[in-house]
C-alpha cells in the first residue's frame, strides 16, 4: 500500500506540474529604474518595493494562479539609457512595464510603451506626463497638478507667507513643479522673492543659499531630488537661514533625513505616501520592508509595492491575464484597501491615469517624519 501511495502522489504531482506549465507560465513584468546615478535612492526603493510585493503574491499562489516574474534593468538615471532599456524590455513582451521613476525618463519612454500597446506604471510626478493623451500610462503617486495646489494653499493659509523663494532642479520634474507652484502663488498674490534654478547632482549650494538669504523671503519652497535636498538643507543651516522650509515628498523623505541629519529638522512637505502615515496597512508594509531590507523605505518603496498590487487588482477584476485590456480596465477603477490590502489606501484612477487618494502634511521633528494633517481623498 505504502509504496503504491507514494508513487501515486509522485505521479499526480508530476502530471499537475506539467499541466501547469503548459496552460500558463509565469506572468512576466519588466522594470526599468534608476538603480545607479543621481536617482539611485529613488530606483532602489522602487525596485525593493516591487520585489517585496512579488514575493508576497507568489507566496500566496500568484495572480489567478500564475506566479509573477520580474526583471530589473538600470536606467543609470539617464533618459537616453532608460529609452534603450525600455526598448529592450519591450522586446520580451512584458505584461506590464514598470518604471522609470524620473519624469524625464518617463517622458522619453512613454511613447515607445504606448506604441507597443503595453501598460506602463511609473513613478514620475511631473504634471505634463499624464496630459499628453497617453492611454497606457499610470501614476503610482500624485502628479504635480494634484500636489502643488495643496502646498500653495498650505503656504498661504497656514504659513501666511507673502514672499517665497523658489528653489528647483533644472530638469523635467523640477521645472514642472516650479511652473505649477508659481502659477498657484500668483493666484494667492504671493510674491516669488527669488527664482533659483539648480543643477541635478549639484554638490555645492553655498551660492544658491546666499541668494536666498539676500532675498529674505517669508518662506522657502524647495523642489529638488533627495540628495540635493539634503545638501541644500545642510547649507541652509550652515548659513543660518531661519525662514520656514516647505516642499514636497522629496524634501522630507527618509533618505533626506538620513543624509541631512539635524539640518532636516523643521522641514515641512506635502506627502502623498509616507511610511509614517497613521494607516495600519502602511505600518504593516513598513515593518515587512524594514525586516527584509534592513532600512526604512521612502515613498518610492511604497510606489513600487503599489504598482504590483495595481496589477494584481486589475488582473483579478478582468479575471484573465490580458495585456490589451489592462489599461482600459484600470481607467476609472477604484481599488479599496478592504478588498485588496496590498493597495494600502483606497485609490481611484481617472481617465488620464492620475490618481485620487488621501495625502498628508508632514514635518520633520527630531529626525522623524511627523504627520501634522491628513488631507482627504477628493471623491
Amino acid at each position, binding site marked *: 500500500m505504502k509504496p503504491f501511495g507514494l508513487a501515486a502522489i509522485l505521479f499526480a504531482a508530476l502530471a499537475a506540474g506539467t499541466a501547469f506549465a503548459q496552460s500558463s507560465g509565469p506572468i512576466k513584468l519588466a522594470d526599468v529604474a534608476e538603480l545607479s546615478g543621481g536617482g*539611485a535612492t529613488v530606483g532602489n526603493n522602487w525596485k525593493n518595493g516591487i520585489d517585496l510585493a512579488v514575493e508576497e503574491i507568489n507566496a500566496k499562489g500568484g495572480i489567478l494562479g500564475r506566479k509573477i516574474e520580474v526583471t530589473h534593468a538600470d536606467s543609470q538615471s539617464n533618459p537616453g539609457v532608460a529609452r534603450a532599456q525600455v526598448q529592450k524590455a519591450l522586446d520580451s513582451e512584458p505584461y506590464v512595464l514598470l518604471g522609470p521613476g524620473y519624469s524625464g525618463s518617463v517622458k522619453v519612454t512613454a511613447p515607445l510603451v504606448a506604441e507597443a500597446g503595453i501598460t506602463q506604471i511609473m513613478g514620475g510626478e511631473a504634471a505634463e506626463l499624464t496630459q499628453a493623451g497617453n492611454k497606457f500610462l499610470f501614476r503610482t503617486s500624485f502628479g504635480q497638478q494634484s500636489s502643488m495646489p495643496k502646498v500653495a494653499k498650505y503656504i498661504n493659509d497656514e504659513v501666511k507667507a507673502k514672499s517665497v523663494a523658489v528653489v528647483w532642479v*533644472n530638469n523635467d520634474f523640477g521645472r514642472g513643479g516650479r511652473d505649477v507652484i508659481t502659477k498657484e502663488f500668483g493666484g494667492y498674490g504671493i510674491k516669488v522673492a527669488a527664482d533659483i534654478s*539648480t543643477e541635478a547632482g549639484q554638490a555645492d549650494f*553655498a551660492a544658491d543659499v*546666499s541668494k536666498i*538669504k539676500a532675498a529674505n523671503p517669508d518662506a522657502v519652497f524647495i523642489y529638488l531630488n533627495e540628495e540635493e535636498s539634503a*545638501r541644500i538643507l545642510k547649507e541652509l543651516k*550652515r*548659513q543660518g537661514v531661519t525662514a520656514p522650509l516647505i516642499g514636497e515628498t522629496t524634501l522630507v523623505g527618509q533618505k533626506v533625513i538620513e543624509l541631512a541629519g539635524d539640518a532636516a529638522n523643521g522641514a515641512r512637505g506635502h506627502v502623498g505616501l509616507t511610511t509614517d502615515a497613521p494607516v495600519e496597512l502602511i505600518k504593516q508594509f513598513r515593518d515587512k520592508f524594514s525586516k527584509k531590507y534592513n532600512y526604512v523605505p521612502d515613498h518610492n518603496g511604497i510606489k513600487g509595492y503599489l504598482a504590483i498590487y495595481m496589477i494584481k487588482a486589475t488582473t483579478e477584476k478582468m479575471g484573465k491575464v490580458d495585456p490589451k485590456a489592462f489599461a482600459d480596465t484600470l481607467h476609472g477603477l477604484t481599488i479599496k484597501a478592504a478588498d485588496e490590502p496590498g493597495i494600502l489606501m483606497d485609490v481611484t484612477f481617472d481617465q488620464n491615469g492620475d490618481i485620487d487618494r488621501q495625502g498628508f502634511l508632514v514635518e520633520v521633528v527630531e529626525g522623524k517624519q511627523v504627520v501634522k494633517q491628513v488631507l482627504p481623498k477628493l471623491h
Partner: protein
Amino acid sequence: MSNLLDLLVAGLATGAIYAIVAVGFTLLWQTSQTINFAQGEFVMLPAFLMLAVMHAGAPFWLAIIIGILLSMLLLGLGFKMLLVDPMLRHGVLPLAIATMALAIGIKEAVKQFFSAEASPFPSIVPAGDLSIFGRVVSLQSLGVLVLAILAVVGLTALLNRTSLGHQMQAVAQNPTVARIIGIPVERMILLTFLINAFLVALASLLITPIYLAKFSSGEVLGQAAFIAAIVGGFNQVRGAIAGGLLIGVVDNLAAAYISTQYRAAVPMILLVVVILFRPQGLLGRPEERTV
C-alpha cells in the same frame, strides 16, 4: 554687499579644499611627472574607507586615523608601486591614461562595494555659528578654512624650512644632480606620494560632510583641482594654493551672479585665458621641455 561676503567666505572654504588637492597634484607632477587624473577619486575614497572602519564599530576619531593610514598605504605606496613605477618608464602620457583608468576603477569599485547612493558623513567641525565683527559665520566654514590653511602652512614649512624639504625640492628640480650629491631620490619621491595621499585624505575629511559620501563626488573635485593647479602654476606649490582659492571663489561668484547652469564653464574659461596669456600659470615659472 553682505551677500558678497557670504559668497567669499563660502568660496574660500571650498577653494581651500581645492587648494589642498591641487597641491598634491603639483607635488606628484614635480617629483615624478605624474599627472594624476584620479586625484578626484583619491579624495572620494578615504571618506568611504573611514565609513567602512566606522561600520566595523570604531569611533569616528579612530576611523579618521585608520582611514588616513589606509589611504597612505593604498593611494600613496600602492599607487606608486603598482601603477606609477611600471608605467612611468613608458612616458608621461601612458601613465596619465592609466590614471584615468584607475579613476573609473575606483569609482566603480566603490559603487560595487558600498552603494550607488549617497551616504551621510560626520563633520569633524562641530555645527554652530560664530559672530565675527557682527557677522554670523558658520563654524564649519571657518573650521574647514583653518584646517586647510594649517595643512598648507605645515607643508610649506616642511618644504622650505627642513632638510627633508630641501632634498625633495632638489629632486623636483634635478633628480640626476640630486642623486649625485647623495640624496635618496627614490625615498624622496615615495615621500611626495605619501604626502599627496595624506592631503587627499584630509580634503576628503573636510569636503565629504558637505558634499556627502558618493562614488561620483570625485569628478567635480578632480576637475576643480586640475584647473586650480594649471591656473595657479603647475610647478609651484604656492601657485596651486592660489589657484585653488581662486577657483573656489570664482565658482561661487559665477553661480550667484552669472547662472547655475554655466557655473562649471566659468573656471574652464579662466583656464583657457590663463593658458593663452600666461601658459606657466599665475604664479608658475616657465618650464623648458627636457624631451
